């Protein structure tokens, strides 16, 4: 697919996301200047509808940015900000700009106190919370989904990180929300877990494409027994397996992105997250096998990518959460046969 916004992102990230930048971020240094460039390029607004100030990029194309960010191991919350802005726009809340992040809001209790709404609860493993200005989440009040925009400086943040050293912080919420901070979602979208799983699946596919490329390159360059190791059939077959897993994950993630905001999304995103998780396991293991000892160091870039895909397996629903969910659907589906369930689950006019 030809896409101007993809080309622009590709160039920007290729020039600025270096091994050194990824390493600095993993040791706690926030890449300030790069975020400014990303925002200036408008990337963070790509999933916002035109009517709300976006630029009318189809959602699947806007979400493609997340795959590209994954392919570069971008240590910033671009995926999170894309989703956050889209949800704020969907609830007609102001778009504050800046770095935003997302969190599953099921643990929050909302309560009306006179004219204001009070939020209280504990958010865990929020991506990049301490580097973000606001956490956007979805929680229920009176049976309806509400979008919340929580200013990080008014929360108590307890820092932690994922396997790749990226911030994954806990946040204590106990806050009276202003009108600009909360609004009902007229058209529900199924909570933050699905959206988070979508962006993680896309990013995993992108990261695996990079891992595959690095591994092919390494196999062609590294010489043992007088020839490039890529000449050995065992290595070739491992690379072919990686290609198959990567292709399946990318297809799955793009299928989910293509059904963003349609009834099919609940099932396609489950398939995407499951497939990404399974592939991450195999692709990561094979990439390290091919790279030998050098790949098992912090000097080489490989670890930034393998650690990311391993971490993403567990975020926004673990593989086990999603396999159980999809399995429950499949076994209890109202369709006549399992086959009808499968065809309906991916149909463009899905009835799922």
């Amino acid at each position, binding site marked *: 697919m030809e896409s101007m916004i993809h080309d622009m992102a590709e160039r920007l990230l290729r020039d600025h996301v270096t091994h050194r930048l990824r390493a600095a971020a993993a040791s706690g240094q926030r890449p300030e200047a790069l975020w400014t460039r990303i925002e200036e390029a408008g990337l963070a607004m790509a999933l916002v509808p035109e009517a709300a100030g976006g630029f009318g990029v189809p959602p699947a194309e806007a979400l493609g940015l997340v795959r590209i960010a994954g392919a570069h191991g971008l240590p910033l919350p671009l995926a999170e900000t894309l989703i956050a802005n889209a949800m704020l726009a969907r609830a007609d809340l102001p778009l504050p700009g800046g770095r935003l992040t997302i969190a599953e809001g099921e643990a929050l209790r909302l309560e009306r106190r006179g004219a204001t709404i009070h939020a209280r609860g504990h958010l865990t493993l929020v991506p990049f919370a301490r580097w973000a200005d606001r956490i956007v989440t979805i929680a229920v009040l009176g049976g309806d989904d509400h979008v919340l925009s929580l200013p990080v400086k008014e929360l108590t943040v307890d820092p932690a990180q994922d396997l790749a050293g990226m911030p994954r912080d806990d946040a204590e919420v106990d806050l009276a929300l202003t009108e600009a901070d909360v609004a009902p979602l007229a058209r529900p979208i199924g909570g933050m877990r699905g959206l988070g799983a979508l962006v993680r699946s896309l990013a995993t596919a992108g990261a695996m494409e990079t891992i595959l490329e690095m591994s092919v390159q390494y196999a062609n360059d590294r010489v043992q027994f007088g020839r490039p190791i890529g000449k050995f059939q065992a290595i070739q077959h491992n690379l*072919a397996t990686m290609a*198959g897993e990567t*292709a399946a994950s990318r297809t799955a993630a*793009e299928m989910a992105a293509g059904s963003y905001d349609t009834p099919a999304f609940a099932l396609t995103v489950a398939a995407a997250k499951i497939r990404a998780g399974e592939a991450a396991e195999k692709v990561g293991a094979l990439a390290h096998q091919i790279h030998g000892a050098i790949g098992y160091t912090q000097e080489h870039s490989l670890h930034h990518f393998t650690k990311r895909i391993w971490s993403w397996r567990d975020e926004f629903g673990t593989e*086990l959460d999603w*396999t159980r969910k999809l399995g429950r659907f499949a076994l209890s589906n109202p369709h006549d*046969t399992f086959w009808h369930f499968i065809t309906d689950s991916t149909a463009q006019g899905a009835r799922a």
Partner: protein
Amino acid sequence: MTLTAFPPPPPGTDYDDLRQEVRAFLAKELADFPPEKRAESWNGFSRDFSRKLAQRGWVGMTFPKEYGGHARSALERYVVSEELLAAGAPVISHWIADRQSGPLILAKGTDDQKRRIVPRIAAGELCFCIGMSEPDSGSDLAATRTVATEVEGGFRINGTKVWTTYAHVADYMILFCRTGKSDDRHGGMSQFLVDLKATDNIQISPIIDLGGEHHFNQVVFDNTFLPSDALLGEKGEGWSQVMSELAFERSGPERFLSSFALIEELIRLLREDATEAQQAEIGRLSAHLMVLRQMSRSVAGMLNEGKNPSLQAAIVKDLGALFEQDIPRLARSLVTRPAVPGGRDSYAAVLAYTELAVPSFSLRGGTREILRGIIARGLGLR
């Protein structure tokens, strides 16, 4: 990295009306077709069924109208194919002709060949078989020894083909053989249209497969005469013709739905009350199936646009075979009912049949190792 990009099928290609028509047809035609027969998947043979399907316009769907086809898209054909496979319909009588021989004749055949043969394929009347493999030439197709020698008015064929699925009932074989010497390993090969019913000196004998069935055969050509108009395509161009045929052969839904009857049996047993662990396994299976379908539909979309997705087809076939071969293991890990060949319990019978079928899935149509070699070359290795 284009190898890992499978563009989504174009919008509006669900063809839900067509799907419902096919489902209604199958519900009627296969009302009494038992699970053990459905388990045979696309190996089931019924001329009668193929003819009825053709009467509905569902054979030769993508062929041009002037040759009895229906000028429909590869994605419409995809819908019909996967519905047939999911139902376990007996389709082999027309399957090979519809999938690859017909398109090959349309692409490379003479006008006369097209007129004589393609309309009869579209009518569901002709069964084709593939004469590629030989005793000393399996994965290494270029090692073919069968030779065609040019003689007055045609060719004399000598050699032996093996594993030829349904040669014993087929009307035509597309024969791959040597027609000349060449320094290039891939040169000097050609393809022929062999009328099996009207040609003397061809001896077809059964080879019984692992499951005890007669599906494939040995076919001996003993100084067999073929008229010159049996040559299909250019003399000496057989290799490239065969390679383009393989994209059609490898990418379809038959590369991941071969064990589908067992999946349906398994789900039927688990539906009542599944444990969380069982649910999780069915969830994973569903995810795989949804994604394989999407990949296969993507390849159909590429074929429709006239692209050559042979690398993507190799990926789908490799992943698809892994999936369909894993189903017996999965079933056995979720349900404690032993496999019983021909058993009264349909789950037990389908499990037994499928267990004996799965070893062939990563052999036929190109072995796993060969496919991975093709993918590796596509990645820029070697």
